[in-house]
């Protein structure tokens, strides 16, 4: 186990895959000479050379599509989208091309590419560089989606993504790049896609979190100071998500709260809540609850952006209300815009 920053874990995952598989290449804007806008590819050009680690022009459609083609030709390209928003000029290649390659060729061809994109709010990049946008990659049969919550999962999920036979998107919460965590490097540290991880065990409620909301959920439980204990589940992979793990936990706790960095309208948590509530119909002791961002763009202002993302205080408060009343508390922006 080594304690490293998340961006270092990304570098290590890439290095290990580049090392163990000559078909792995990296593409992206300023990932080679400059080591990446978030320094998540630092040193790889020197180690693996300019043929395998390439800076691209500002042409997301072009190089994402090139990664699709290179993948179909037998490579395992890893593309960095500096900010997930940039996929908005290139989404076609992922959704309508890459995700259909295996199906259309009846399995003869595959497109084993990985798209890494930094995502999410919290650093003051403003509304065009702070969206999470996981929904762009959901509802796409043939495409998987993983989201690390720190260095450990950044390492393990990325290696699994690169090895996956099909296209995988990994959304890296930008706010976590500098955070440190213990990581087990090597084969043993690879985390299979589609499996959730129980971060802590408790009895009163299941907190399902993803990416940057995992540390938020953990902090919320600490704030509760024993008033309640939670099974905190790090989903790790959003498509496909680990139904069995969540089901098992909620069967035990009887209550489900999803903590999302996505809008109240359209966020991913509804699918978790609906599925679980349906499977455990009549067995829950409270309605499933989502703690989300409001339906607004991401504000630049620091106090506002801090309010935008679910905070540990908000989560603790909402969980507390749920436990106390057995009903869903109103979202904060409805309860009072001034709070």
């Amino acid at each position, binding site marked *: 186990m080594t304690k490293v920053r998340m961006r270092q874990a990304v570098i290590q995952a890439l290095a290990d895959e580049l090392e163990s598989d000559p078909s792995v*290449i990296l593409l992206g804007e300023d990932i080679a000479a400059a080591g990446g806008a978030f320094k998540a590819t630092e040193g790889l050009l020197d180690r693996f050379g300019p043929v395998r680690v390439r800076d691209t022009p500002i042409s997301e459609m*072009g190089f994402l599509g*090139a990664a699709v083609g290179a993948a179909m030709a037998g*490579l395992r390209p890893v593309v960095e989208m500096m900010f997930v928003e940039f996929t908005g000029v290139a989404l076609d290649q992922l959704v309508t*091309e890459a995700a259909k390659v295996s199906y259309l*060729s009846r399995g003869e061809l595959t497109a084993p590419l990985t798209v890494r994109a930094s995502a999410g709010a919290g650093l003051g990049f403003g509304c065009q560089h702070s969206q999470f946008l996981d929904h762009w990659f959901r509802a796409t049969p043939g495409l998987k989606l993983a989201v690390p919550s720190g260095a450990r999962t950044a390492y393990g999920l990325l290696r699994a993504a690169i090895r996956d036979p099909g296209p995988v998107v990994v959304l890296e919460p930008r706010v976590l790049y500098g955070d440190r965590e213990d990581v087990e490097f090597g084969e043993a540290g690879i985390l299979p896609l589609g499996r959730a991880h129980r971060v802590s065990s408790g009895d009163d409620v299941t907190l399902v979190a993803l990416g940057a909301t995992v540390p938020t959920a953990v902090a919320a439980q600490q704030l509760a100071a024993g008033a309640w204990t939670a099974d905190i589940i790090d989903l790790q992979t959003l498509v496909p998500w680990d139904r069995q793990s969540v089901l098992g936990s909620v069967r035990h706790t009887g209550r489900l709260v999803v903590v999302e960095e996505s809008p109240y309208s359209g966020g991913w948590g509804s699918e978790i809540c609906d599925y679980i509530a349906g499977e455990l119909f009549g067995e829950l002791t409270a309605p499933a609850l989502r703690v989300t961002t409001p339906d607004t763009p991401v504000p630049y202002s620091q106090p506002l952006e801090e309010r935008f993302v679910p905070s540990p205080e908000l989560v603790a408060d909402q969980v507390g209300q749920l436990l106390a009343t057995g009903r869903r508390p109103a979202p904060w922006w409805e309860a009072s815009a001034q709070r």
Partner: protein
Amino acid sequence: MTGERRERRAQLATPLGPFERMAEIRAVEEHIQLLFNEGHVRGSTHLSNGQEAVAVGVAAAARLTDVVTCTYRGHGQALALGLTAKEVIGEIVGRTVGCAGGLGGSMHLVGPDVGLWPTFAIVGAGLPVAVGAALASQVNRSGRAAIAVFGDGAANIGAFHESLNLAAIWQLPVVFVCENNLYGEYTRIQLSTPVSDLADRAAGYAIPGLVVDGQDVAAVTAAVSEALERARADGGPTLLEMKTYRYSGHSKSDPGSYRPAGELDQWLRRDPITIEAGRLIDGGTATAEQLAAVSSRIAAEVRRAAADALAAPQPAVAEMLIHVHG
């Protein structure tokens, strides 16, 4: 399947090969029109009759290991590369004998063993993918080249620009083959494109750009061969503009009434099959009678292939649930 496809591909190198294949493409497309009229074709289907020389020239110039990305107007290219009439028609009528088992349809023909990647229904999407195949070749030093076939209308979409720029800056072994058939759907090129020769756009990327007679299969073969040679010699990409014409409307339901009177007739005078027949006759390779016999043999074979395709079973429901993930 692979054996037959390869054999068919090799036939392009025989003296009569290009003529035969163009005749077959023509016959298949005409047959698909009939099948459409009879209600056997769903959605949309885009015929390539008139453009046979481009498809056959590209296939004749390419190696078996080269990759071709092309569009929904890909029946001709698929046949040229080696797919059989039965698997092409079978796909278009949605039967198990189709090259994608009936799950792809007219716009999604596929034959990776002869270099045909699933054809692209999104305009421009095949260009970056071909660039990627060429990138893989550069990384692997495999000697493989990539060819992107696309229309004149596609030259106005962002993917065109980004792909040519990427290929140029990385000097990738890829040939961009633009089939300029004067129309994007129902819109004449002059209404969408302010330059008359798309080949001129190559200058914006500092790569060679050439206008080619797309009705002459020998000219197409020569131009693509030269570009492929340059590509394999690390000479980078080339943009080839094939001047050609589609005899049919854009898609099955389009009568093409937006075309000026006489335009089709003019192009029919430069029919690629007639031109190649002339060359064969003039060169003493074959007589007009022999070629006529070849054509009717092929027509009969295509009829049989179509009948076989239609007689084949529909895919089972279980088929749609597999091969979803890589």
